[in-house]
């Protein structure tokens, strides 16, 4: 068993850390300021700043980490992607190296040659942004219960329904929409994915819903939205499996986000404990604070190993659904614990919006809901252990 990272992985880590230190860290005061002004999501950074960051990332070749070479990427796999994500989440300045989401993995499994040209390649190059619409007001944890329908009329599909909590719907060049094509079959052969371009008639961005953290997902309505047959993504009726693959990769990524954010909290806790003196002694000399620090370091270590292992196993072509569920549950809860301890250690400063801790704490909260709530993952883990 060899736990060491490859030399090139360590170099990548170093490059991303530098990028974070030189480009992203200096923007934190701006992000905090805009956050208190009520700006969220994509608006936390002004457009020109974001464009500059993308240009800098492009210069350093920091894109397409997990994109195969045939699609113009570097084909490094998910482990390096997780290393990069971990480093990126040391800072609260929101920034992702393109492509923007694991929709890549869904597209790679499903695109036709024409769709590859039109969607996959520009997306893989970071020229297009994407969103995915699965959840509905009546079907979240249980997407098999979705009501949105797609009905074939000639060589067109007519889609009707309502999706909710759709992240980045307003900036996406295309949305992957999941819809029922055969009610009788449900998620086993009756659910299909569609590629819907921005501005398609009948695609209505109903309202943006502010939620805790820096998110503001959308409610999206389809009113007789008509798209050609060529927009079917993957096999008709079999949209569920590629969607699951995409969710698995995202859960690994969430693990790495949590490790990065928790590490930042721990670093801040350690620094502060060494400086802050109360009742004539440093916080660092108090056992209560020492235990915060020891428990946090242990928590982070465990989550990091789980993340690296899950990503490594995935890169080796194995099924990691179980590991991804465990990681999603463990890492999101552990980062919440660590952030809470860091805030407690900082006292009043920990509550203030002048430090990143309060922002991190809020940002973590929805991570226990999206990509499958904690309870559902626990249920899935147990179910697979208890089945005969």
């Amino acid at each position, binding site marked *: 068993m060899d736990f060491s990272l490859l*030399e*090139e992985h*360590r*170099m*990548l880590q*170093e*490059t991303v850390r*530098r*990028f974070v230190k030189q480009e992203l860290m200096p923007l934190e005061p701006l992000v905090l300021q805009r956050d208190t002004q009520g700006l969220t999501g994509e608006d936390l950074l002004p457009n020109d700043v974001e464009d500059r960051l993308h240009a800098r990332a492009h*210069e*350093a*070749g*920091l*894109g397409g*980490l997990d994109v195969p070479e045939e699609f113009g990427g*570097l084909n*490094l796999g998910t482990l390096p992607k997780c290393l990069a994500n971990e480093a990126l989440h040391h800072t609260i300045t929101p920034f992702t190296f393109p492509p923007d989401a694991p929709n890549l993995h869904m597209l790679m499994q499903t695109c036709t040659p024409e769709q590859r040209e039109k969607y996959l390649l520009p997306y893989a190059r970071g020229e297009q942004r994407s969103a995915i619409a699965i959840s509905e007001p009546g079907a979240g944890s249980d997407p098999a219960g979705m009501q949105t329908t797609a009905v074939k009329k000639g060589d067109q599909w007519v889609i009707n329904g309502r999706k909710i909590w759709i992240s980045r719907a307003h900036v996406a060049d295309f949305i992957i929409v999941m819809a029922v094509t055969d009610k009788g079959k449900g998620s086993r052969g009756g659910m299909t994915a569609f590629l819907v371009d921005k501005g398609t008639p009948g695609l209505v961005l109903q309202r943006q819903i502010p939620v805790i953290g820096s998110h503001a997902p959308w409610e999206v309505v389809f009113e007789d939205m008509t798209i050609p047959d060529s927009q079917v993504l993957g096999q008709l009726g079999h949209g569920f499996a590629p969607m699951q693959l995409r969710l698995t990769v995202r859960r690994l990524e969430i693990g790495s986000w949590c490790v990065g954010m928790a590490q930042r909290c721990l670093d801040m806790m350690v620094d502060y404990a060494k400086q802050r003196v109360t009742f004539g002694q440093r916080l660092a000399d108090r056992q209560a604070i020492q235990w915060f620090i020891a428990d946090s370091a242990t928590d982070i270590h465990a989550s990091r190993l789980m993340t690296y292992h899950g990503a490594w196993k995935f890169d080796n072509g194995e099924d990691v659904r179980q590991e991804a569920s465990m990681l999603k549950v463990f890492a999101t809860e552990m980062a919440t614990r660590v952030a809470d301890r860091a805030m407690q250690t900082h006292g009043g400063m920990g509550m203030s919006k002048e430090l990143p801790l309060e922002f991190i704490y809020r940002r973590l909260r929805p991570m226990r809901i999206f990509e499958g709530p904690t309870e559902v993952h626990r249920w899935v883990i147990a179910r697979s252990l208890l089945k005969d």
Partner: protein
Amino acid sequence: MKTLVTVKRVPDPETTIRVKPDGSGIVTDNIKYVINPFDEIAIEEALRIKEKQGGGEVVLVSIGGKSVTEQLRTGLAMGADRAILVLCEQPLDSLAVAKLLTKLVEKETPELVLMGKQAIDDDSNQAGQMLAALLEWPQATFASKIDFAADQKSATVIREVDGGLETIGFALPAIITTDLRLNEPRYASLPGIMKARKKEIKEIPVADLGADITPRLTVVKMAPPPKKEAGKKVETVQALLDLLHTEAKVI
């Protein structure tokens, strides 16, 4: 132009350095190592020279154990063409380093040797000067700007000296050591990292160079700097003067 750039593996300036209780050195467990920051500036400058001149070669050299491969690989990922690692596990003083470099310069015959003005671990600031003396080459230390004549036979360097800047001109080949303000080093780009996998790191056992590296210098003891004590507030100027006289003994 062919440039030889020296690379030393040093503890990351951002890690906390602890001196061993017996004063024989620093605690090296769990320390992260990086390219000496001044050497990184030297690599960056060599790459810029090559890019500007539209050709040439950037060769990295380091002396040390196998672990230095990591720093050399990073330099290659920044864009250097190839690297030489002189395998040597024993600690070396600046003169021994300069002598080994002399042998390498004789082998490689570069027009320019770019070095950091000092390594941030023991801050000796002399390898460059010693190498220039041994080779009998011109030297420009603490460079903050470097320009070459069109025929690439001579150079002009602006040096950071006490109280200002000094501009000197000299013929090549020469030794230039870098100061902080010379440039801001790029980071290894991802395509650079991938390309670096295939670049050569040639290992040479130190004995093969036939240089006399007997230590002329021994480190007797290392000690951490004294802890800064808390300041004092005084009520009057007179009290301050008294304390400066009696306690601090500076006036």
